[in-house]
């Protein structure tokens, strides 16, 4: 799919989409948004990249293997819960330090898992 329009549009859209996703992730706790949506938007951005420039280019742009994100994301979510266990509280009890809390970390875990899942599927499928 070597479409010039698609390629140019992707170049413009990629940073916007990624910024928008981070914005969604950041505000998710107070306004509509959150890890699921943000992860899906990032995935969509990289799927677009894969269509425009090929999977290899998209993989390079992602910097990490999406397969690795699966594990990292799960570990981040798990770790946010274990923070409470370390203090003798039940697993996944929310801890807050000012405006920052372990639920936010959990949401980051969800965000990473969603990216990993969607991109693992899309990239493997595109390469098969």
């Amino acid at each position, binding site marked *: 799919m070597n479409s010039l329009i698609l390629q140019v549009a992707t170049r413009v859209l990629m940073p916007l989409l990624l910024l928008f996703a981070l914005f969604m992730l950041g505000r998710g*706790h107070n306004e509509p948004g959150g890890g699921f*949506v943000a992860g*899906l938007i990032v995935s969509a951005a990289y*799927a677009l990249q894969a269509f425009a420039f090929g999977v290899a280019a998209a993989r390079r742009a992602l910097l990490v293997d999406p397969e690795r994100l699966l594990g990292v994301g799960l570990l981040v979510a798990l770790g946010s819960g274990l923070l409470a266990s370390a203090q003798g509280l039940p697993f996944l009890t929310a801890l807050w330090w000012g405006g920052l809390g372990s*639920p936010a970390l959990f949401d980051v875990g969800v965000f990473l898992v969603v990216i990993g899942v969607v991109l693992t599927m899309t990239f493997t499928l595109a390469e098969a």
Partner: protein
Amino acid sequence: MIPLLVLSPFVFALVAALVAGRWPTRARWLAVWPALLAVVFEHELRTRVAVEGTQVVSLAWAPSLGLTLQFTLDGLGLLFALMITIIGALIVLFASAYLKGHPHLARLLAWLFVFMGAMLGVVLSDNLFALFVFWELTGFASFMLIGFEHDTPAARAAAMQALLVTAAGGIALLGGTVLLAQITGETTVSGVIRSGIDVTAHPTYLACTLLFLLAAFTKSAQVPFHFWLPNAMAAPTPVSAYLHSATMVKAGVYLIARMMPILGGTTLWSTTLLVVGGITMVGAAWRSVQETDLKRVLAFSTVSALGSLVLMIGIGTPGAIVAAVVYMIAHAAYKGTLFMVAGAIDHEAGTRDVTQLAGLRTVMPRTALAAALAAASMMGVPLFFGFFGKELFYEAEWQYAGAAGLLLAISVAANALSGMAGLVTGVGPFTGARPSRFDAAHEPAWPMWFGPLFLALAGVVFALVPGIVNTPIALAAASVTGAFTPVALVLWHGFTPVLGLSVLTLALAGGLYTQRAVLRKGLPGSVGSERVYVVTLRLLDAVSAFVAPALYSRSLRSYVLVLIVTTAFLISSGLFLGGGGWSIEALTPLRAYEMVIALVICAGAVMAARATSSMRAVLALGAVGYGVALLFVTYGAPDLAMTQFSVETLTAVIFVLVFRMFGSFAHLSSRLIRMRDAIVAGVVGVVVGTLVLLVGTGDGTSRLSHYFAEMSATVGHGRNIVNVILVDFRGFDTMGEITVLVVAAIGVHALLRIGADERGRP
């Protein structure tokens, strides 16, 4: 410490598998561990329980869940534990020589250790549910051991029979335990006794007692559930000696004795035990003398002995309980010996047919000595421990007010017959002229005569120095009767009527032995309960052969159809019965753009269903998805709308990538089937629509939602309630959900990559 020791045989099963697998010639050293356990239990019994009373030891299993494994060390439990470990050690020793060179020796030993651990669990657990688990585990170990020679169909059939019969009893045990827990609110034996609740006065006492007795009767092979035990002789001889004579089959007797303080003391209790025990005792003794296979003779005489034990507990007087304990120790010793002797004979002479065997004493002198001592104990010859058992048994019956005469008569008959069985198995093969075919036979390796001789000598030593067993017997009896009375066994009572009965029994046994050929010939005997088992199994087979093909059609669509129709039926009957009404007035008025969205969705859905090309179907599905997202926007769910939009886009991407597989959507089914499916689907659609209409007009938000709405900002520190629910309130759920996602991704990855490897192969 003690709980770990009780459970240690399970670990040792692994050790046994490793050691015996790698160094089969060293396997006999495995016997050291149960011997050490026996020393520990002996020490506990004499220094702790005898002095300080019952000991309760527990092991915190999962303290946060309130699970602890609690063991009670009292006289009864420890006596059993001693028998299990001492005989276990001798059996391991015996088996290591008996199955020398057998490719699966390691497996046999491993399962023997599993059984040992399970059996210790049965006799030492205080918690009835734990007892049930260990009880079933003994049955499972027995299944594996009976079926040890799994390439012979007879062994497989016998293993399954034993499993089915005893597992049915296991279920009864579970039922009885649940009932008992409901009556008393306690799940431990000690707790039930401490609660002081009179279980016998409770309306469910009858059911509870019958369930416990059913469990005990199946495990201890009482008529009419006895038939599995003789068939279990398909197991290798060490297994028969250990499980099916000395220990496991006594678990039923143990259970009855254990439950007696709780369930005993009623007419129901004693009558059932007396009748079942009596019939078993006489019937099995009768059958034993008709058999010609050494092991089957022993098996039936074991059933008879178990019947005697049940009968004695049924009498229930302190004297009868002491008699039962003594009888049980004596039986474990002489029957264990005779089984191992039978194994040694089979091993050396190559046959177990008692009509063939003769004159082996000259070639197997040590085995012959052990056999003779055991047979004497079994017959109840004075100066042997078996004599005490019979003596006390007769005495308890003599003093029993109800039907003493009848009980004595059948007991003398049964004991005479088992005395004869003792002669047949312990004396017959060794006396007389040796046929030349046994010239090659010789004394087996020491591990095979040591165990029998050890147990047989124990029968002599206990009789000559009864002081060493007085305390354990008294303690075991005290666990059953609830009150400790010292026991002092004496060999000589003077000339009493009971002594007369003992002499009569001996004389009868000798007389019957001379007529053994006549007894074996053409006398009716077999009890037909095994037929019932066979017919029941065939019936089950026939029913499932009829039912299974009807349910298991191996067609995905018919499963889906059945599921759909059932679900729709259940929902609609619920709607119909629930009767919740709705009225047109309750409906909120429509808006034009909502109708447009709904139209788009419905048109997309219908188009997807009718599509004749894959392209169209995917487009239609996309239209549906975006339409649904728009509905979410309209009804205050921006989070859902955004998620749905992104997912729809990505779904389209995935579909495009797999597009290659989509060919034409030309119809495969006939018009008639499509019509049928359309009608079924349409009906379900109407049911679901009605459901939505009813719940949608129902009472709005739930209490749960109010809770979350109130807590979100204050506790959750977030203003987007949906997100707070996802990452905080219900975080554990989300954790599970993202794990599912990861699994799906790995599945996709694996499916595609594994396929790539296969295709890449030359």
